[in-house]
C-alpha cells in the first residue's frame, strides 16, 4: 500500500549530452517514419503481398512468410512515429539502445517488404540473404579482431588491409601445388594442402605484424605511417607477382576451396540452421575466435595485463608487467588472425588470387573495430552490419526496384552512419592508443 509513497518516481537526471542524443534519436525515428509512410506505404497500397522465403528451395521445412505490403508498411510507419514521439517527450532511459535496434529492424523490414512487393518477382530468399550476410562479414570481422588485438595494447594497426591481402596471396600460392591431382581425403572440408596454405597465410600475417611491431615499438616510427607503408608494399608486391608470375603459372593460382560443413542436428533447425550452422571452416573459425579472444582479453591474467598495457603502460611497468613483450605478442597474434582472414578470400571463397581482391575490406574492418568499441563481440556485430549491407545491395539488385541498385545499396550505409553518430557516440579507444612507450 505504501509502496508508491516509499518509492517516489525515480528522477532521471539527464545530462545535456544525453538530452542531445535523445533528441537526435527522436528526430531520426520521425524521419524514418516519414520515409516509410510517405514513400513505402503510399506506394505499397496497391502492390499486394510480398513473400520472404525462409528455407532453401531444396528444403521445404520452413514455411514462407507472406504479408500484405500496404499493411506492414503502414503499421511500421505508425510504430516508428510513436517511438519518435516518446523518445522526444521523455526518452526510453536504459532501453534506448534496445529501442533503437527494434526501430532499425522494423525500418529495414518495411523497406525490404516494399522493395519485394513492387518487384515483378514478389518474393526473395531471406535465408539466402542472411547466409550471405554472415559470409560477407567474415573477413571484416577477422580484420577487426586483428585491429582489436593490436590496439588493445596501444599499437595502431592500419596494416590490416595489407595483412589480409598478403594472407590471401600466400594461402593460394602455397596450397595450389600441394593439392590437385588425385581425389584427396578431406579434413574439415579441405585436403591437407589447403590447411598448409592456411598455415602459411597465418604465418605471413604474423610476419607482416612483426614488421609493424618492430618498427613501431622498437624504432618508434609513427604507427600510421608504418601501417600505410605495409599496406602499399603488400598491394604492390602481390599485384606485381600476380601479373608477372601467377599469370604465367596458372597451376599456382588454383587452390582448393574449403567446403561447407553442416553441424549435425544444429544445421537442421529451420531457418537458423542453414543461416548459422552450415558454413565452411572460416566462418566457424571467426565465431570461435570472437569467443576465444573475448575470453582471453577479459577473463585471463594475460588479458588483464594486455589491457593495462594499452590503457596505462607506465602503471603496468611499475607493477612488473613487461610492456614491450606484451605489445609484440599481441600485435603478432593480431597478425595471425588477419592472415587467417586473408586466406578466406582465396581458399574460403573463389580459390584463386586476383589483384587487390580484398578491395578495402581491411579498412572496413578498422571501422568495424571502432564501431565495435575495441571489443571482439562488438567487432563481430559491426562486421555483421557491413555484411548485411553487402548482402542487401545484392538482393536489391536481383529484385530490380527500378531505382538503381547502387543507390539502394547505399541505404544500409546511410543507416549505419546515422546509427553510429547517434548510438555509438564518442567511442573511447584504449587510453594509450598509438603512443609508443619509452622507458626512462
Amino acid at each position, binding site marked *: 500500500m505504501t509502496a508508491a509513497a516509499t518509492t517516489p518516481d525515480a528522477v532521471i537526471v539527464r*545530462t*545535456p*549530452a544525453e538530452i*542531445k542524443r535523445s533528441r537526435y534519436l527522436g528526430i531520426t525515428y520521425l524521419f524514418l517514419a516519414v520515409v516509410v509512410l510517405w514513400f513505402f506505404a503510399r506506394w505499397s497500397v496497391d502492390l499486394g503481398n510480398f513473400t520472404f522465403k525462409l528455407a532453401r528451395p531444396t528444403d521445404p521445412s520452413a514455411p514462407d512468410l507472406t504479408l500484405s505490403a500496404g499493411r506492414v508498411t503502414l503499421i511500421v510507419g505508425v510504430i516508428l512515429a510513436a517511438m519518435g514521439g516518446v523518445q522526444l517527450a521523455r526518452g526510453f532511459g536504459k532501453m534506448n539502445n534496445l529501442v533503437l535496434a527494434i526501430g532499425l529492424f522494423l525500418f529495414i523490414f518495411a523497406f525490404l517488404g516494399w522493395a519485394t512487393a513492387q518487384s515483378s518477382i514478389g518474393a526473395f530468399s531471406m535465408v539466402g540473404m542472411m547466409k550471405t550476410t554472415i559470409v560477407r562479414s567474415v573477413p571484416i570481422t577477422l580484420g577487426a579482431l586483428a585491429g582489436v588485438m593490436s590496439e588493445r595494447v596501444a599499437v595502431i594497426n592500419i596494416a590490416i588491409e595489407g595483412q589480409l591481402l598478403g594472407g590471401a596471396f600466400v594461402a593460394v600460392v602455397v596450397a595450389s601445388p600441394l593439392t590437385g591431382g588425385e581425389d584427396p581425403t578431406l579434413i574439415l572440408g579441405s585436403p591437407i594442402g589447403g590447411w598448409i596454405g592456411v598455415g602459411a597465410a597465418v604465418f605471413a600475417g604474423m610476419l607482416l605484424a612483426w614488421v609493424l611491431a618492430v618498427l613501431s615499438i622498437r624504432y618508434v616510427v609513427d604507427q600510421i605511417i608504418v601501417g600505410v607503408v605495409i599496406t602499399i608494399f603488400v598491394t604492390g608486391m602481390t599485384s606485381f607477382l600476380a601479373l608477372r608470375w601467377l599469370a604465367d603459372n596458372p597451376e599456382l593460382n588454383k587452390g582448393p576451396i574449403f567446403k561447407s560443413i553442416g553441424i549435425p542436428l544444429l544445421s537442421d533447425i529451420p531457418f537458423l540452421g542453414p543461416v548459422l550452422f552450415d558454413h565452411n571452416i572460416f566462418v566457424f573459425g571467426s565465431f570461435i575466435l570472437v569467443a576465444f579472444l573475448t575470453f582471453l582479453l577479459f*577473463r*585471463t*591474467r*594475460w588479458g*588483464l*595485463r594486455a*589491457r*593495462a598495457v594499452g*590503457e*596505462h603502460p*607506465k*602503471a*603496468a*611497468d*611499475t*607493477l*612488473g*608487467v613487461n610492456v614491450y613483450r606484451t605489445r609484440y605478442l599481441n600485435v603478432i597474434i593480431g597478425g595471425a588472425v588477419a592472415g587467417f582472414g586473408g586466406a578466406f578470400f582465396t581458399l574460403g571463397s573463389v580459390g584463386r588470387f586476383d589483384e587487390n581482391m580484398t578491395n578495402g575490406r581491411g579498412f572496413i574492418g578498422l571501422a568495424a573495430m571502432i564501431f565495435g568499441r575495441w571489443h571482439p563481440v562488438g567487432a563481430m556485430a559491426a562486421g555483421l552490419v557491413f555484411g548485411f549491407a553487402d548482402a542487401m545491395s545484392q538482393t536489391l539488385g536481383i529484385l530490380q526496384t527500378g531505382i538503381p541498385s547502387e543507390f539502394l545499396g547505399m541505404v544500409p550505409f546511410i543507416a549505419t552512419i546515422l546509427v553510429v553518430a547517434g548510438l555509438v557516440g564518442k567511442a573511447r579507444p584504449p*587510453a594509450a592508443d598509438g603512443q609508443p612507450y619509452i622507458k*626512462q
Partner: protein
Amino acid sequence: MATLELRGITKRFPGVLANDSVDLKVSSGEILGLLGENGAGKTTLMNILYGLYSADEGEILIDDVPQSFAGPGDAIAAGIGMVHQHFMLVPVFTVTENVVLGVEPVGPGGVINIKEAKREVREISQRYGLEVDPDAIIEDIPVGIQQRVEIIKVLFRNAEFLIFDEPTAVLTPQEIEEFFGILNGLREAGKAIIFITHKLKEVIEVSDDIAVLRRGAMVGGADPATTTEADLANLMVGRPVELVVAKEDSEPGAQVLTVSDLVVLDDRDQVAVNSISFDVKAGEIVGVAGVQGNGQTELVEALTGLRGVAAGTVTIGGKDVTHATPRQIHESSVAHVPEDRQRSGLVMSFSITENMVLDGYYHEPYSSGIKMDWDSARSKAEELVEQYDVRTPGTEVAANTLSGGNQQKVIVAREFGRDVQLVVASQPTRGIDVGSIEYIHERIVEERDQGAALLIVSTELDEVMALSDRILVMFDGKVVAEYRGGAVTAEEIGLAMAGAAT
C-alpha cells in the same frame, strides 16, 4: 624488526648531480619525513630505491643485507612498495583489477580468480581500515579513495617498506586528516614508512624523524617534537624564508570583473560551472579555493575566452566580454597565468625572448607589417628577465631548459609586464620551489597595491588563505561559501571544499 638503509647513494644525470652521497634509514613502526623542494632529488632517490633507476654509487640494504634491484619487480619482491605522486592506476579498471594487476590469483589456463581477488582486497581493506568498494571503477571514485587503492595495492604485495611520494598534494584538508589516520594505522601495524613532502606543517605533524634534502644532498635532520616550520624552511631552502605573505589591508575600488549566473560546460558537455555569480574589485585579491575538478578550470577558461559560455554574462571593466575572443580579452588589459604552465603558458621549445612576446608579437614595437623586430623583442625580454629575477643563462635559451620556478617567472613577467586591470591566475605556484613561491606571492600583492583586481585560483589552501582578501569556495561547480580573508580557519574552508556547506 626490519630496517631499510640507503648508504652513499649518488646519481648523476647529464649536467646534474641529482643525488650526492645520500644516507637514509628507516625501521619498522617508524615514519620518516623526507623534506625537500621540488628538484631537490627526492623523487630520484625514491626511484632508485624502487628499482626504476640504478644508482651510480652507493648501496641499498635491507636488514643489513645489500640489495640490487634491476627493476620495480625486484624492489617489490624485497618488500618495498611505492605510492606514486601521480597514481599508477588504470582508470577503466575496477579497484580489484588494479590491485591484483601483475600478481593475479589465477586458476587453470591463466583464468583470473576474481572472487578470490575480491576477497583478498576486502580483507586488506578491513584489516587496515581502508574502506573501498572492490567493484568500483577507478575513474568514478574520488581521488582520496583512489589513494586508498594505491595503498591496498602496495599492501597486497606484502610490502614492509612503504614510500609515499607527495601523497597529500591531491587531497582535501579532510582527506589529509583521514590519510594521516591511515598512516598511523600502518605504523602501528609495524610498517616502515617514508613520507615525501614539501609541506612543512604535515611533516612535523606525522613524522617520527625528519630528513631534509637540498640540491641532491642530505643537509640535516630534525626532531619533529622540537623543530619549527621556520627552521625546516631554512634548512630546505638554505636561507631564511618569509612564510607569511606581508600585505596591508586591501582598499577595494570599483568593480572590475563581474560574473553573473555563469554556466560553463566541460569537454564532455556536462555542467562544470553551475550558475555562479561574483565580482572582483580593483585593489582586491579574491581567492578561489576548492578541490581540483570542481569547475575551477572551466571557470578560468571561460573568463579568459578559451572556453565557450553556455549562459550568463562576464563583464570586465564595464565591457561585456561574455563571448569575446581570447585576444579581445587580453587586449582589455587582462593577464592570465594558466593552470598548466608547460601546456598552455609557454611554448616549451621556444626561446625566452619568443615566449616573452607571445602576447604582443603582432604589433609595434615587436613587428611591423609582416616582419618581426627581434631586436626590440630581445631588449624587452632582457628587461623583463632582469626585473622579474628569472635565473637563466640568457634570453635565447629554450624555455624547457629552465626550472619550473623560473618558467613560472617567465609567464608572470610576460603577463604582469604591462598595465593590467585584471589578473586571472590559476595555480600560480604549483610545483615550484619555496623561493620562487615567495617571489611570485610578493608580485601578486604588488599588483594589487597598484590597483589591479586579482582572481587567484588554487587548490593549495595555504596559498589561498595567505593571499586573499576575500575567499570563494567552489564545490561541484557552485560557489558554496564566501569568507573574508584572515577571518576564517582552514577547517572551515576545508569543510566547504568537501561540500559540507551546501
